[in-house]
């Protein structure tokens, strides 16, 4: 089975949303190995992908700054 090191992929693709199928997680629950299914600057694009291609165990992460630089956030 083709697998990706999720942390490495996160470092390679900056400022985008990434969608993985998850194969392994670490003891803190963070996904560590999986397969990159899609990536896009748009979160909605990953939702569209999953609606067309349901995945039993997926992981979504944004690799840009949160919040964006210069922004302050009150939740």
């Amino acid at each position, binding site marked *: 089975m083709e697998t990706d090191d999720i942390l490495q992929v996160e470092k390679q693709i900056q400022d985008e949303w990434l969608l993985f199928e*998850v194969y392994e*997680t670490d*003891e*803190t*629950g*963070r*996904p560590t190995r999986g397969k990159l299914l899609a990536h896009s600057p748009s*979160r*909605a694009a990953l*939702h569209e992908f*999953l*609606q067309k291609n*349901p*995945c*039993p*165990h*997926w*992981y*979504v*992460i*944004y690799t*840009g*700054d*949160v*919040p*964006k630089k210069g922004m*302050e*956030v*009150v*939740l």
Partner: protein
Amino acid sequence: MTQVPFNPEASLLIFPCTIECRHIGEVRLALDTGASTTTIREDALTDIGYSPKSLTDLVSFSDASQSHLVPRVTLKSFSLAGARIDNLEVLAYTIPDGIDGVIGLNFLRHFNLNLNFDRGILTMERIDSSQ
């Protein structure tokens, strides 16, 4: 006891969380002790198997600027690392870009929390032993 690392310098404390319905989703949510209820992007909830048509239980939701009606659903389970709550009610609402929602008090109050900013470690100790 659950221990999870975080970046003590970050503007938001963001943690990987697992949400489960028919499918399992791994999302990143901000810890928010000011939120009464855990809130998750509606897209993510439909991606773990909720039908948009099932999101009909609406509750009033107030954020910093306004009030509106948002759907409420019950997850099969919600986990932050080893800290898991079954049948957790969450709200379906899209938080600003970069995260998929917030971890609110309806999850956090099941645990004694320690945010160690010196070491960048969140420690969670379950309060009740019912699960």
